[in-house]
């Protein structure tokens, strides 16, 4: 099988970027990734772009062609992938498979979302398009509402982890203080988080990820097609998995463990030939605090129902044995939906290269990204190894 690596990365600052357009964001992140790879842009053969909802929020579809045009990539083939919040991870997987098959040697993969220029109600309605329209949206559901129901069921099947969910939020914002690209770096107290007003029982706003503008790109290449310069900083993709599940929450076998993650993780671990305990750190999809806890169980880092204990014990903190979301995660680095999966890779590659500055982890040989779409209806897991 071909060895495939990420050879370049780039991202914008995440946040409420009032004066930045979709084009602007794509240009900055994409140009940074190409420059970081140190390749001529003429050698890039295809572009894949994760973009969830610019059709609704920006009046713009076919954003993959927009990106290729903005980056000056000529008439290469492009495609936009949409798998809700997993759109970025899905774009990476498509590029990975195309290179693995031998069709291409070098591709660029990005993600972009521009959200904060629209009023909250429009953003909420835009995000709600990723749930079942007839059964869920029309019943008055919101995404916080769906995941709040998941949290409540988790409390029933295992135990109440409201406090541990709060610690997830505190850790995320604290980690974000060391990430210059993060949207909401701040010290939060657990007392403040736990006393916040509810938006969807048992969630307050501190249990929810952010609304974010931003873009992230990576250059991915077959190692047999790159030069010695690129090889030096290349980070190898040692595992790739893609799982799916039903769209409607009522049709899921379990609400406290996600089949899509189990499938994606199983495939990625199998391909990499490693066990969960071989992973040094991970960026997991914390669209809500409970989701982070469930993800770390589904990924095999902790036993079912014990993810909260790991959080309480400091294991998932930056200086813990299994650091989770050292970037700040979706909760505090930000959640530019289509870009999130690629931004997770930006962090993992940065850590594996040893270039994370103040937030550099001591033990960073194998890192994992976990990107979840909708109410856990799609999942992408990728495992990376440094040199």
């Amino acid at each position: 099988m071909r060895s495939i690596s990420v050879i370049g990365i780039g991202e914008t600052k995440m946040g409420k970027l009032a004066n930045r357009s979709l084009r602007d964001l794509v240009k900055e992140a994409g140009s940074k990734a190409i420059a970081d790879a140190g390749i001529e842009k003429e050698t890039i053969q295809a572009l894949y772009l994760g973009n969830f909802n610019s059709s609704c929020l920006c009046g713009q579809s076919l954003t993959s062609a927009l990106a290729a045009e903005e980056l000056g990539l000529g008439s290469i083939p492009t495609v936009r992938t949409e798998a809700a919040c997993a759109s970025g991870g899905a774009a990476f997987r498509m590029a990975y498979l195309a290179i693995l098959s031998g069709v291409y040697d070098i591709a660029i993969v990005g993600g972009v979302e521009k959200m904060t220029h629209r009023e909250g109600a429009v953003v909420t309605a835009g995000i709600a398009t990723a749930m079942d329209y007839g059964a869920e949206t029309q019943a008055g559901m919101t995404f916080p509402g769906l995941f709040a129901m998941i949290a409540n069921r988790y409390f029933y099947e295992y135990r109440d982890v409201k406090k541990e969910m709060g610690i997830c939020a505190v850790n995320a914002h604290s980690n974000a203080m060391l990430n210059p690209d993060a949207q909401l770096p701040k010290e939060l107290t657990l007392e403040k988080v736990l006393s916040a007003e509810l938006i969807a029982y048992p969630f307050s706003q501190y249990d929810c990820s952010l609304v974010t503008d931003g873009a992230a790109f990576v250059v991915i290449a077959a190692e047999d097609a790159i030069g010695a310069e690129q090889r030096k900083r290349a980070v190898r993709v040692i595992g790739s998995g893609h799982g799916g599940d039903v769209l409607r929450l009522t049709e899921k076998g379990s609400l406290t463990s996600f089949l899509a993650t189990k499938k994606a993780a199983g495939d990625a671990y199998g391909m990499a030939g490693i066990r969960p305990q071989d992973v040094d750190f991970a960026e997991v999809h914390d669209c809500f605090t409970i989701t982070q806890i469930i993800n770390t169980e589904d990924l095999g880092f902790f036993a079912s129902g014990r993810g909260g204990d790991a959080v309480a014990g400091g294991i998932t903190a930056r200086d813990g044995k299994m650091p989770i979301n050292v970037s700040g995660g979706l909760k505090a680095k930000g959640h530019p939906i289509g870009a999130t999966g690629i931004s997770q890779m930006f962090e993992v590659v940065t850590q594996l290269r040893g270039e994370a500055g103040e937030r550099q982890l001591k033990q960073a040989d194998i890192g994992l990204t976990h990107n979840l779409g909708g109410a856990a209806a799609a999942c992408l897991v990728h495992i990376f190894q440094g040199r």
Partner: protein
Amino acid sequence: MENARIYTYSIIYAAPVGFEGEAPYVCAILENDEGKRVLGRLGGYRDGIGLTIGQAVIGSANGQGDTVYSIG
């Protein structure tokens, strides 16, 4: 759906467009003895009322061929 019980629920305080005047309201997944589940609004909620998973709810015909559920 006969013999429906609460499988899980949330109380929505921040309602989406079209539902603003109705908050807070309860959304629930209900389950019957055969394990069939439906998601929907649960009527009869008042602030401070106790809700528990496993609790039975009352289903009644709404006159348009659908069943509506409420807290007993």
